[in-house]
């Protein structure tokens, strides 16, 4: 089911974008596709959420961007993780795991 509350998922979206870019640099469309893939289609990222997030993260210094050519020879803007971005990915992943573990155990409790 696609998310209805983007704010709720801001941290999630940031983390997913960082994760998608961990292996290779990608354009916006590629990122959207990759997020859908790695979440097995659970998150369908809309342009209206994706691009503001990309801009914000670039400004925060986690991403840098450059213009390149897509697989269809279309001029596109590509994003790449910075050192700060990689660090962020590591700390956020750890935090997320802690939270999800805690949430899971909380929900299992009777």
């Amino acid at each position, binding site marked *: 089911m696609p998310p209805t509350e983007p704010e709720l998922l801001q941290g999630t979206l940031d983390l997913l974008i960082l994760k998608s870019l961990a292996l290779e640099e990608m354009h*916006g469309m590629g990122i959207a596709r990759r997020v859908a893939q790695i979440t097995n289609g659970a998150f369908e990222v809309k342009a*209206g*959420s994706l691009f503001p997030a990309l801009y914000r993260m670039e400004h925060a*210094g986690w991403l840098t961007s450059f213009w390149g050519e*897509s697989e269809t020879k*279309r001029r596109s803007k590509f994003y790449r993780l910075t*050192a700060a971005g990689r660090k962020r990915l590591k700390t956020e992943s750890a935090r997320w795991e802690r939270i999800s573990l805690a949430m899971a155990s909380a929900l299992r409790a009777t």
Partner: protein
Amino acid sequence: MFGKRKFECELDEELRSFVELQAAEKVRCGMPPEDALREAWRELGGMEQVKEKVRDVRSGAFMESLSQDIRYALRTLRRNRGFASIAILTLGLGIGANTAIFSVVDSVLLKPLPYPEPDRLLTLWECSRADGRFDGVAAANFYDWREQSRSFSRMAAIDPYPDFILNGAGNATAQRLSGADVSADFFALLGTRMALGRDFLPEEDRPERNQVVILSYATWQRYFAGRADILGRSVPLNGTDYTIVGVLPRDFTFVTKSSDYHARNQFDLYRPMALPSPPPEWMRGTHPLCVLARLKPQATQQQAQADLDRIAANLERLYPRFDKGIGVAAVPLNRHVVADVRGALLALLAAIGLLLLITCANVANLLLTRAVARGREITLRAALGASRSRLARLLMTESLVLTASGGLLGLLLAYAAVPAVVRHLPADLPRTGEIAVDGRVLIFTSAVTLLAGLLFGLAPVLYASGSLRQRGRGIAGGPSRLRGALVIGQVAIALILLTGASVMAKSLWKLLQVSPGFRSGDLLTARLSLPPQYTNHYQFGTGVHREISAVQQRVLDRVRRIPGVESAAFTAYLPLSGADNDWAFYVEGRPPKPPGEFDAAHYRPVGPGYFETMGIPIERGRGFTAGDNEDGLLVIVINQAMARRFWGAANPLGERLRFGDVKWRTIVGIAGDIHHDGLDVPAAPEMYVPYAQVPNVEARPTIVLRTAVEPWSLAAPLRRAIASVDRNIPVDQITTMQQLISNSAGQPRFRTAVVLTFSLLALFVASLGLYGVMSYLVTQRMQEFGIRMALGATHAAVMRLIFGQAARIVGIGMALGLAGAALLSRAIATLLYGVAALDGLALASVTTLLALVALVAVYFPARRAAQGDPIESLRHY
């Protein structure tokens, strides 16, 4: 915001590419291409909406990072209090001084005149074709110019000389009111609306019809308690009843050059001029008027000048006896008003600009020092992904926070200083009443502050980006060279300012050394206004003004009995008071001059005992005695300048000359020259005439007292003595001769004080800069010095090394400064008296002063270098 357009373009392109890629994918999944593209656009959810969301993030991020930067800047500055307070103080002084002086210059020089369309206002003068000298305008000439010119929508004149005596009611003493006669549309020309009542009517501007007056706002408040029912009331002035028809608005001023009418430009009341139409011929012979004109909307100043030239040529042909060789000069009012002070004020503005430059250089130096110390922090931030522009902004914000604080401090200083500056302004500066730290000044200060911030804020940014490019290697060379250059600049500017200040001070000193030609100490003076019953109703003729002589004699009798008064005498035009008069004369036995040419000299009616009281020496012959009265032989005393000019080596004693009244007067004495118009103005030919023998009425004589006690202490007894003769004689302008002399040097004194203050500030700031840069160099080279000393160099050798380096910086700075001073010397040459703009002694002394101060500034870092323990400094690095 910068880069906004680029941002929009890129966002657009990125989103289009996104849609196209999405469509391409759908095609790969089997969708027909046109459906795929439509579907992709639909999924995007509206191009504009997406863009808007990104824009929100962008502006939010910008504001957020800006406030972050400011908070960060404040935090760092708090942590470095010493640095911050020195920087802010230096800036505050620089900006404050600039603001204060700008507020003066703005009000006097730059602000438009307080009239509608001020740039269409001209002043018109009679102008000698021979030497270009300006003169006031003869009433008949004004009449003809107005009738015959075609380039002006209006032309009006003002005669600034009439005085009125407001008869006291009951026991109150009479008051002298300064008045002006104006043509009926004078106020309409200036665009002035009355605060109360109406302007003059054209029919009131005729002889016998002009018993109406318009009051100044101050007169209305002071003598009529601001009551609204004064319109239509009559007031007794000079014994005639005048009807009040209007009151001028509070802020009305007739802006003029104060030297124009012997410092008369604030009038208590105005009366229609009432020129006869056509004016009689004698009205071409005296030149009392100031003429104003307003250009027609389409007319240019050149057209107006051509128009006037044509009329002047015509008048020259018609009235050669009066108008031969006389042209018309049209000068824009705003230029005319500041003609005498423009150069001096611009010099001041340049001086404070230089001071601000020094200040900026100094703060740039301080910031550079910090940038070097923070090199590691900056490299770290860059490594963590901060972009270069982001870092530049961080540093720039810090600089701007500094300047903003400095600017605020400067503004506060200016607020405090401006009233004091205004009090010390020379009395003859025009438009000083409008000086204030107002909106215009605030804009100026903000602009200067911002500019200063950008100027010195650039230094650390350049340095930081340079050092980033080099990735932290070899960063010592760049900034120290830049810092050296900054100090060189400071030394050069300080030397320029010091040179200017020293020649100005020397010039002022020389000026004040000039002997006025009489003994100026212990003289008290006051001006009397004689009511009409003494002045015999404007009769012209020698020997008909016995009432004046009589009342003067009665006043002198009383005044001489005041304890502490050694002697007393009357004169019409006191030296250095601004009052003056010229008369034409003809020497017996000389061939008559062609029409329009005549000999003239300054005309000085004085009473018996005047030369003795003033201390003016009689070089040959005699002075005046009580016997030189209405019934005695008509006599005259000339000064040396007049004897030289008109008799050369011959003896003028016993020669005779005459004025317009055609009575022969015998020269009986030659008096010493005095400086009547200013200490820097050479003595001009003067002829003294006994008061009792003058042909014209002098209703406003000045009394001079030589005192055995402090002159001011006799001011009240003098008033009482005169009141005991006649309560209806107003007394004003009580002052001492010393005060008049001091006032006459007001302009040079003011500008010298300002430039001197600034140059000393500049010297101080420059020496701080030198100290800073040398300390820094010493710290950097401590290791080197350690090695040198370990290898046997003596303390003295190390100190020599430091001093050598400092000497290079100071030497280059001085050379540049001297070159700059030479370039600027022409600009201030006109402001100087008796001293060359590049005075050798002045140059030598300021260079020495600067060298000494530099020596002190370098001594401390040098001593530190030499006293450092070589082992210690080697271990540390």
